[in-house]
């Protein structure tokens, strides 16, 4: 009986035209945009080294760091909330790693765990205030944006007398947790490829690119996990429900407040991850790190097809949104165009994406 029904479902599903089905996927716009952007730069910057291994790794790494933020920002936005404190949280988490290590001699791994602990707390506070007061999260986290940035600068100058904390590399060497954030993966493979002459090498025979930065693996891994959670778990269904209509969700027993608080903790932890990657890769922390990242993340999410009003979106879309963002940012550099024009492009792209998303939503709810 069950199999008969299942077969019938399949039969009927095939009747839906391919285009209709594609159009109802939130990530379609971002994927189409990615193809366009790649085609554009392949023509304009094809010979500039942008698509050499080093160039590809570079724009993937830029995309990956933004992508990590965007995935979590997307989950939160689907649940109907924003987190504008993400950028400040990056700076805060960065000094939360750097100060204990350089000033108090903590092992790097404890400092990293400490930073994640701080992120959980900040996310919880953001979420708790938002759900308990019923204020728009836009305002609550806007306050967070200023408070956290102010704390970062104030505490850092109070404790170290400056706003930059360099020299973390000498502490992170040999630390067991640090390679998880600041290293390159598949180094052996790259050396082997270089030895065969299949990839570019430095004059001394070492590969020009030492490996795949772990941030790229984090990005892909988190996107995959978030997609699975969103589409294939109860929690994922609750995320959609919270953003779609929180009263309706509450009436059928969805723990709306808990879901939102968990997602605020998620965005704060994404910021801490971003901070850990940057601090351990570059060996320094800066109180200005993460400036404007909250908006870049929202841009990637919106380009990725998630609705600002919540209730609809994906985790894959924002990954492509971040890829577009990173590719354009680096691509403009490679084409030799003044990088001042980058922001104009980003602004126009956001507007086009939102108009497109709006059209999709209309199709979703009106077409039969």
């Amino acid at each position, binding site marked *: 009986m*069950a199999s008969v*029904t*299942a077969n019938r*479902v399949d039969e*009927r*599903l095939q*009747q*839906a035209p391919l285009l209709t089905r594609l159009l*109802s996927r939130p990530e379609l716009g971002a994927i189409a945009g990615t193809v366009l952007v790649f085609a554009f730069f392949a023509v304009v910057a094809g010979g500039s080294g942008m698509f050499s291994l080093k160039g590809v790794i570079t724009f993937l790494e830029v995309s990956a760091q933004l992508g990590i933020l965007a995935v979590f920002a997307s989950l939160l936005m689907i649940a109907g909330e924003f987190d504008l404190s993400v950028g400040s949280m990056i700076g805060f988490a960065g000094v939360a790693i750097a100060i204990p290590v350089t000033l108090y001699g903590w092992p790097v791994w404890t400092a990293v765990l400490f930073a994640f602990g701080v992120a959980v707390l900040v996310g919880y506070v953001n979420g708790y205030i938002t759900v308990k007061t019923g204020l728009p999260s836009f305002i609550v986290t806007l306050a967070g944006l200023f408070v956290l940035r102010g704390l970062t600068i104030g505490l850092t100058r109070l404790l170290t007398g400056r706003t930059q904390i360099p020299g973390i590399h000498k502490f992170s060497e040999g630390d067991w947790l640090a390679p998880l954030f600041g290293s390159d993966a598949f180094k052996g493979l790259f050396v082997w490829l270089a030895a065969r002459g299949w990839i570019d090498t430095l004059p001394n025979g070492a590969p020009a690119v030492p490996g795949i930065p772990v941030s790229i693996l984090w990005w892909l891994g988190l996107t995959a996990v978030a997609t*699975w959670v969103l*589409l*294939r*778990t*109860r929690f*994922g*269904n*609750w995320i*959609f*429900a919270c953003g*779609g*209509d929180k*009263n*309706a*969700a*509450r*009436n*059928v*027993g*969805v723990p709306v407040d808990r879901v939102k608080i968990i997602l605020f903790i998620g965005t704060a932890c994404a910021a801490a991850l971003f901070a850990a990657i940057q601090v351990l890769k570059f060996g320094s922390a800066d109180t200005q790190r993460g400036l404007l990242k909250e908006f870049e993340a929202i841009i990637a999410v919106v380009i990725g097809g998630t*609705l600002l009003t919540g*209730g*609809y979106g994906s985790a894959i879309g924002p990954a492509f949104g971040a890829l577009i963002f990173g590719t354009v940012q680096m691509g403009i550099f490679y084409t030799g165009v003044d990088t001042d024009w980058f922001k104009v492009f980003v602004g126009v792209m956001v507007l086009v994406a939102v108009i497109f998303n709006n059209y999709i*939503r209309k199709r*979703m*709810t*009106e*077409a*039969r």
Partner: protein
Amino acid sequence: MAPARPLIDVQDISKQFGSVIALSGVSMTVWPGEVHCLLGDNGAGKSTLIKTLSGVHQPSSGRILLDGEPILFNSPRDALDRGIATVFQDLAMIPLMSITRNFFMGREPTKGFGPFRRFDVETANRVAREEMQKIGIDVRDPSQAVGTLSGGERQCVAIARAVYFGAKVLILDEPTSALGVKQASVVLRYVAQARARNLGVIFISHNVHHAWAVGDKFTVLNRGKTLGTFDKSQITREQLLSMMAGGKELEQLGAELEEFARADAARAGGRESPLEAGAAAEAAIAATLRQEVAEDRELLEVERRRRH
């Protein structure tokens, strides 16, 4: 089959919001297998009463017995767990989510264990399709957004969901008020189905015709008090109508009804044949409703002449 005790026994419920008395001393009983219509004009206290029954509000005084046991709900979820499901006017449906996701919202079936416990999408899709088919709505793809369904179909999904999850009492808040005649008859037919499954149904409406088509008992509320509960055999539509309207506004009502009837007649003229329209039952209910509107108009006309 005569049940020994009512499913729900509301005893002398009062509810105040500050200085406003929304309900004062309301009592009613709901038995399994009956449709109990709660009628009343705007502000009569219908919404407060059902919100009290469904756990949104707590009564200021009086008590509610469920299967003979006194109960006090703290949230709609509490009431839901005890088998009282309310389909609110706003439907508790999320237009951008799929039928399946809406159907199982908050009660998703899962498979697997530990961190790999996941939403059993295949089972959910199959059940949603089957349940929708039972109520006569053929869904091609249960993963299509609820926003693509018509208003009546959405009501049916909400009701089907409540029934599937084992509701004993179904509270329907104005389920037909926003719907056209044909759409309304789809919902009414499903209400009759729920009754046949021995559920107790509380049907809130200010539309006497819809209520009369499915109701077994009628409780009329006016300004926070009951004007009484009546069996279908004890009362006539026109009595119910004049009770709801409070008598003095009868003439205005009569004029309104005429207007409705004209609109209905115009719509009926342009309708496709019942066979094309689909289920004959639907058409029959729709026809009854139209006829009732016409009868009411005549009765009111008589009443008006008598008063002059």
